[in-house]
């Protein structure tokens, strides 16, 4: 029954990484990542695997290295760079804003990569024993997912101090991820040991990242909601001029036209309203509720875009100390755009 054998091999090679990914999605208390985004990340990982195949084939010819040395010295850096490209786009555009969603999407990219890679090897080595596929499924595939998730987690962690968009956190994280990948490949001469180590370390590392990520998210959620609520109250009651926020806005009148300062205040108020909406959504999702639909949401997001244009780049920079719509908060816009 050759078909059954191929199906069993494919299942052993691909199911563990998909089950691990599914468990991460289920553990996402705030449902930060929609299933469609996970599917897109899996696809991006598959595309990365195809791209890497061509790059590695070309580099193998250019360097002339024996395959095993190439797998330790060159391939890990190439593969982590290509897998990290989609994650880089997600993080720099703030489509992934927290440790938890970054870990899920990073793992999904790595899983997509591993599935395409395993499919390739299945086509090349259809008669390899089941143990080979068990090692590729439980070891290599989980390593690919785990290392890419770790790459994203490190960028988010290091980036808190320097800004996720800056280059240094990326370079450091990429080198560490490539080093871990290279160590795994190096110890593939003892594949059972490498697989056992992956199985021993990965769940614990993810559990620590999860705990840290949810704690940070709760802190951001709590503080942000209270600040937005307070600022909105001050703006609404017309008391904002007596506060440090108001005094700062008054000082901007020396540098900006009065109509631009008025637009800044409108932008601040709208950002508060939308931030409350986004954070309220997460508070409700945590308890399994879906927020009521806001028919004005799309119009409010359009108004924010118009006000940002009206205020201009210099105005937005001047608003940075007050605005609730940059850094981790910028992620909120994507959440709301999904809802509108």
């Amino acid at each position, binding site marked *: 029954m050759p078909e059954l054998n191929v199906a069993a091999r494919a299942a052993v090679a691909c199911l563990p990484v998909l089950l691990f990914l599914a468990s991460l999605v289920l553990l996402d208390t705030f449902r930060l990542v929609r299933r469609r985004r996970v599917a897109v990340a899996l696809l991006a990982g598959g595309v990365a695997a195809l791209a890497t195949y061509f790059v590695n084939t070309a580099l193998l010819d250019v360097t002339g290295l024996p395959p095993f040395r190439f797998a330790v010295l060159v391939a890990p850096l190439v593969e982590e760079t290509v897998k990290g490209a989609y994650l880089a786009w997600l993080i720099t555009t703030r489509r992934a804003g927290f440790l938890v969603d970054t870990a899920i999407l990073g793992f999904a990219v790595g899983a997509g990569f591993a599935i395409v890679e395993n499919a390739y090897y299945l086509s090349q080595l259809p008669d390899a024993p089941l143990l080979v596929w068990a090692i590729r499924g439980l070891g290599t595939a989980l390593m690919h997912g785990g290392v890419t998730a770790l790459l994203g987690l490190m960028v988010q962690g290091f980036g808190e101090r320097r800004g996720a968009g800056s280059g240094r956190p990326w370079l450091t994280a990429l080198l560490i991820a490539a080093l871990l990948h290279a160590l795994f490949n190096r110890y593939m001469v003892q594949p059972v040991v490498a697989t056992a180590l992956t199985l021993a370390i990965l769940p614990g590392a993810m559990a620590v990242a999860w705990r840290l990520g949810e704690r940070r998210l709760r802190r951001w959620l709590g503080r942000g909601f209270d600040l937005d*609520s307070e600022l909105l109250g001050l703006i609404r009651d017309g008391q904002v001029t007596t506060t440090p926020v108001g005094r700062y806005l008054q000082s901007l009148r020396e540098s900006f036209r009065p109509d631009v300062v008025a637009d800044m205040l409108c932008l601040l108020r709208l950002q508060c309203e939308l931030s409350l909406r986004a954070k*309220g959504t997460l508070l409700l999702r945590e308890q399994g509720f879906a927020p009521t639909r806001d028919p004005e949401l799309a119009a409010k997001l359009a108004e924010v875009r118009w006000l940002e244009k009206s205020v201009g780049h210099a105005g937005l920079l001047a608003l940075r100390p007050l605005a609730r719509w940059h850094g981790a908060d910028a992620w909120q816009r994507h959440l709301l755009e999904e809802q509108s």
Partner: protein
Amino acid sequence: MFAIGWHDNGSVRLEGRLDAASAPQAREFLTGVQGICRLDFTRLDYIASAGLGILIAVQRRLRDDGGGLVLAGLSPHLREVLGLAGFEGIFEFE
């Protein structure tokens, strides 16, 4: 200073500031409520997200048993904040 207790009319009265520090006290009290429960916010000066989180969790539990929270006497600002946050269809307001 925060206080929570039963009112003569059968509703639960909240007083003072329901913030992160007083949230455990509110959680402990509200763990015991059942069915349809009216919360009187008239004397509540401030509620932080920690307090709102407790209300949502209590609402989840009560709804699963066929009950729910009725929020009464909210300040216009708090009513607006709850509306903006998308809590309109979750709680009943009075």
